[in-house]
């Protein structure tokens, strides 16, 4: 939505006054000397600040030599993020934290039943650590922001290119594709992810689920993520998927899922298509094609042969329809078979 929210509360004069507020207010004093001193003291930044390369180059060489002789731990433990207490008495690496603190690579944030904390994910987002949770900072690099959720629940909100923020769980790894989600798991990997913005990929044991906005996926230890399903998916479909994914429901569970699925549930059927035994793949494809006709260039034969390009094209259509359906909810009646307004 690009339009501005119409202001029906303020009078025109008040609106004009707001519009004329100065956008620049000079600080009451020159803050540069203080900033300069701080960046010189704790120079973790981009360059040498006031130090010359003649100082840093030999130091870097010496550091490289140290690394080369095998101080791997030092390499692994570099990097840190800030963490803020939002309720109760969370702990960082076993110690009670104050209002705010630093979370270093390898350290844990732990919350009891009445504690909460928020971790700043570098500069790309933040993670709310819900009560009763244990989270470790695994890696803090520009290209790899990685947490491990041992148990409990987190709410992650990240604004960054895909695949630079990861959360490891006992049942698999959640890969951010530009999104917001809530993830909960117990210590053995029984968990649930609910995506409330963008997309998430959940991967484990060679199994991959793409969970879009408005969808859930369950996880189980040793099995990884289940087939994702929509918030409003029929109970019969959810039960059938759980049976298929985690309770060896087999062909009977697939048949129940196909019978319960609506056009809106195409994302679940697409995931089933790549997971069922080859003998049932035709049934899944036929049901999916009846609910959401495949786009041009996708053939039954190609889909049954698991042609990656065709599956991707089909997924792209399903994803676009679902996105339109959700963002236009309450505004337009969108046909879940085509994504067009009815």
């Amino acid at each position, binding site marked *: 939505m690009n339009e501005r929210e119409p202001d029906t509360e303020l*009078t025109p004069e008040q609106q004009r006054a707001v519009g004329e507020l100065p*956008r*620049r207010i000079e*600080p*009451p*004093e020159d803050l*540069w000397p203080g900033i300069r001193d701080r960046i010189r003291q704790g120079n973790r930044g*981009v*360059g040498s600040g006031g130090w010359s390369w003649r100082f840093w180059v030999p130091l870097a060489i010496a550091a490289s030599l140290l690394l080369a002789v095998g101080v791997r731990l030092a390499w692994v433990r570099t990097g840190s993020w800030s963490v803020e207490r939002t309720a109760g008495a969370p702990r960082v690496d076993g110690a009670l934290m104050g209002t705010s603190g630093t979370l270093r690579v390898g350290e844990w944030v732990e919350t009891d039943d009445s504690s909460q904390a928020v971790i700043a994910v570098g*500069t790309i987002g933040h993670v709310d650590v819900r009560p009763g949770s244990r989270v470790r900072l695994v890696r803090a690099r520009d290209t790899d922001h990685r947490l491990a959720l041992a148990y409990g629940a987190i709410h992650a909100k990240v604004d960054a290119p895909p695949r630079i923020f990861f959360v490891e769980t006992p049942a698999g790894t959640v890969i951010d594709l530009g999104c917001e989600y809530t993830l909960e798991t117990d210590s053995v990997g029984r968990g649930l992810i609910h995506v409330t913005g963008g997309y998430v990929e959940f991967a484990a044991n060679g199994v991959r689920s793409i969970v879009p906005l408005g969808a859930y996926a369950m996880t189980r230890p040793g099995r990884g993520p289940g087939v994702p399903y929509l918030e409003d998916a029929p109970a019969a479909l959810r039960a059938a998927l759980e049976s298929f994914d985690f309770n060896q429901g087999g062909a009977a569970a697939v048949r129940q899922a196909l019978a319960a699925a609506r056009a809106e549930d195409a994302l679940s059927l697409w995931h089933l298509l790549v997971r069922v035994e080859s003998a049932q793949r035709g049934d899944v494809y036929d049901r999916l094609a009846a609910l959401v006709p495949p786009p041009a260039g996708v053939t039954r034969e190609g889909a049954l042969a698991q042609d990656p390009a065709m599956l991707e094209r089909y997924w792209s259509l399903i994803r676009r329809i679902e996105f339109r359906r959700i963002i236009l909810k309450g505004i337009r009646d969108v046909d879940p078979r085509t994504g067009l307004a009815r």
Partner: protein
Amino acid sequence: MVEGVEVVEDDEGWPFPCKPDPGARHLTPVATIARAIDDLVRRAQSGEEAAFEALYRAHAGRVFALCLRLSGDRTRAVELVQDVFVRCWERLGSFRGESAFGSWLYRLAVNLVWMANRGDRRREARVLPVEDPQALERSGDATTAGVSVDLERAIGSLPDGAREVFVLYDIEGYRHEEIARMTGIAVGTSKAQLFRARRLLREKLER
């Protein structure tokens, strides 16, 4: 101030320190400014403190205004501005030029102030507008300064969440989706807080 650098504004109102560049005469003013800022950012990324100082001088006013209005506390705003620029220096290596430097800096500032506010809800008084209305008058049109000061006072007295969304939406021009992305609140929450802020503001101004 770095010698030869002057501050101008681009088409989005962002102040850019602009060093005259004879080789850039064929470029539009905005392109010239962008080229100058790119140069300063590159130099700062390589560790040149003077270039970073120029970036600070150019942007301090807008960052201070943001910190002041979001925190509602003049002393806190001064600390936050320093934190923002120290964080900026630390993160400058990750700036890839995919957006204007000013936009990137501002997002960093919003994120930092928002995080700080969440951990600092205990403060009791917001003193800026009352403490030093002169600071605002110096920045604005003399004929509207009194109105501005009243308005700043009223904005400063809004509840935290409502004030934050009002500042970002109505003063800084962000959309609800952008606010949601930067702060982690839901779009619906942002809309509700804006509605609440405007209603409270009108009540305060009409008292």
